């Protein structure tokens, strides 16, 4: 009872404060000649401004489609920024799922990858991936020049690539580094820093653009009718299978697989960091998929937002319930992986599957990822963050799901999709086996056992992630 009276008093207090401030504000309003905001514009109708010369010049250049071009260009830029944020998502997810003694190392790799990725894509990757006419399998890259990208207009790509060359570059550049980031998580906690940096650079510069050109550059897969909207295969399966190759060459973390087939989990050190990572990835995916519409065409972009979000949610729910049933506990790390699985799954067909197709794609991806993680652990493929399962296996799933859940009239073939995704995965795998294999032979890819035990933060960087020890303990 007394609770209610008190509540009432509080509400009365609010009402009272309201009256006082009402009086106050009336005074103030008088002083500032309050006018209505929106109506003012219409009623007080200032004479329509003459467009200034700058604007007329722009329209003269771009024609009547200028406004739509501008919107679309802007959207793709914003999408690029969102994809950029995915790199923070990966950095936090991977460091959260690593032990604290390897945290600086994981963060460093992610910082390096985005920096290196942008520069290498500028100097080689972009032109290797979008070479114009080429043999369909492989093209050489060259540095971007200002001349090539300074004068683009609507004719560059119509509604299908409705942006300036700069925008095209920066959006694709943000994607490019992702492949290496995926590998980064899988090889965490034992890979030698310098070897990884070399491998990541080669993968992003020379590997990724090749398969990219097969489809998005207009190569043989594109000619075949293969469809991969935003990269379930071209980005995720590519990264996942590169990761698989590296993990096989690298071997498991010490102490992970014991004699007698026992598996000893090595726990990630911060669930909040990992959760932040997945939410940021989810957010970034609106740019990853939404931006892949390559214009702001309202229905396409909004439908992609819906399928992306729905598949992610379905993936999360499926992983929650599957892990609850199979593992007996509602596992947060599985829920997080389930969301990512749903996102990877929907990426290939976000614009072209049915609405409830996206639900099923997510649900199935969320289930697959749980079993896939268990499976890879069983065959002793030690992947600390589940990158192979999330990106590799669900990337394949998403690509073939385009054929299964396509909208009426889509005309996608299950077989073509399967050929495409397996070719891409195979290329990534073989490229990585060779390149990482050579690096292994030449300079080694693994830190010493001692360094692995002591942690790569001290070993590679001489720095701790959480060096604080209640006051000054360093001399």
């Amino acid at each position, binding site marked *: 009872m007394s609770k209610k009276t008190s509540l009432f008093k509080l509400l009365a207090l609010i009402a009272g404060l309201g009256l006082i401030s009402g009086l106050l504000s009336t005074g103030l309003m008088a002083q500032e000649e309050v006018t209505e905001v929106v109506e003012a514009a219409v009623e007080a109708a200032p004479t329509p401004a003459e467009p200034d010369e700058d604007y007329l010049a722009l329209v003269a250049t771009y024609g009547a489609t200028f406004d739509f071009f501008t919107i679309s260009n802007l959207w793709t830029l914003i999408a690029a920024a969102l994809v950029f944020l995915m790199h923070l998502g990966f950095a936090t997810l991977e460091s959260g799922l690593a032990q604290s003694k390897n945290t600086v190392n994981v963060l460093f790799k992610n910082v390096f990858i985005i920096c290196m990725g942008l520069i290498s894509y500028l100097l080689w990757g972009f032109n290797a991936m979008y070479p114009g006419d080429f043999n369909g399998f492989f093209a050489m890259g060259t540095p971007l020049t200002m001349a090539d990208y300074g004068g683009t207009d609507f004719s560059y790509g119509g509604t299908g690539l409705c942006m300036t060359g700069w925008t095209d570059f920066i959006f694709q550049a943000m994607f490019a580094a992702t492949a290496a980031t995926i590998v980064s998580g899988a090889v965490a906690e034992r890979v030698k820093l310098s070897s990884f940096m070399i491998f990541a650079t080669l993968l992003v510069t020379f590997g990724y653009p090749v398969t990219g050109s097969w489809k998005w550059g207009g190569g043989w897969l594109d000619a075949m009718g293969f469809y991969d909207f935003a990269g379930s295969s071209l980005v995720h399966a590519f990264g996942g299978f590169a990761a698989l190759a590296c993990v096989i060459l690298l071997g498991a973390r010490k102490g992970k697989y014991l004699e007698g087939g026992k598996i000893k*989990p090595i726990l990630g050190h911060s669930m909040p960091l990992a959760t932040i990572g997945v939410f940021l990835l989810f957010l970034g995916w609106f740019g990853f998929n939404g931006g892949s519409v390559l214009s702001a065409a309202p229905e396409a972009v909004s439908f992609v937002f819906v399928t992306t979000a729905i598949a992610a949610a379905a993936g999360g729910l499926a992983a929650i319930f599957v892990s609850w049933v199979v593992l*007996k506990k509602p*596992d947060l790390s*599985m829920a997080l992986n389930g969301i990512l699985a749903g996102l990877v799954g929907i990426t290939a067909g976000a614009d072209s599957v049915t609405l409830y197709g996206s639900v099923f794609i997510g649900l199935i991806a969320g289930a697959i990822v749980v079993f896939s993680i268990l499976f890879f*652990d069983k065959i002793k493929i030690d992947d600390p963050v*589940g990158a192979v399962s999330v990106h590799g296996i669900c990337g394949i799933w998403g690509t073939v799901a385009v054929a299964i859940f396509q909208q009426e009239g889509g005309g996608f073939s299950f077989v073509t999709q399967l050929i495409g995704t397996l070719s891409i995965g195979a290329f990534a795998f073989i490229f990585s086996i060779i390149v990482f294999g050579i690096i292994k032979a030449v300079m080694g890819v693994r830190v010493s056992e001692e360094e692995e035990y002591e942690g790569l933060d001290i070993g590679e960087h001489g720095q701790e992630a959480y060096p604080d020890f209640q006051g000054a303990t360093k001399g």
Partner: protein
Amino acid sequence: MKLVKAIIKPFKLEEVKEALSEIGIEGMTVTEVKGFGRQKGHTEIYRGSEYTVDFLPKVMVDIAIPDDVVAKTVEAISKAAKTGKIGDGKIFVLPVEDAIRIRTDEKGDGAI
């Protein structure tokens, strides 16, 4: 002088502190520890692999006291920390040869 080292469940710390205050003990040092004992940890699952968490969060309380209050102290701790469930913890009594209060350089029982 003795050092009473009590390993207790974390959420019991406050009650133990109060029980000690009541019998006039006004100094102690507390450490976060992980305990391994009969209270076999839960079997947990991380990303599908089962494992046993044997190391459970505990709190270790170190209390230096004059010899004559040992019994009283041990009793107070024991009573306050007991839940009757496995894992309640242990109390160890160690001999202390000397104690110094840094601020005043006092020694012996007067220092604690």
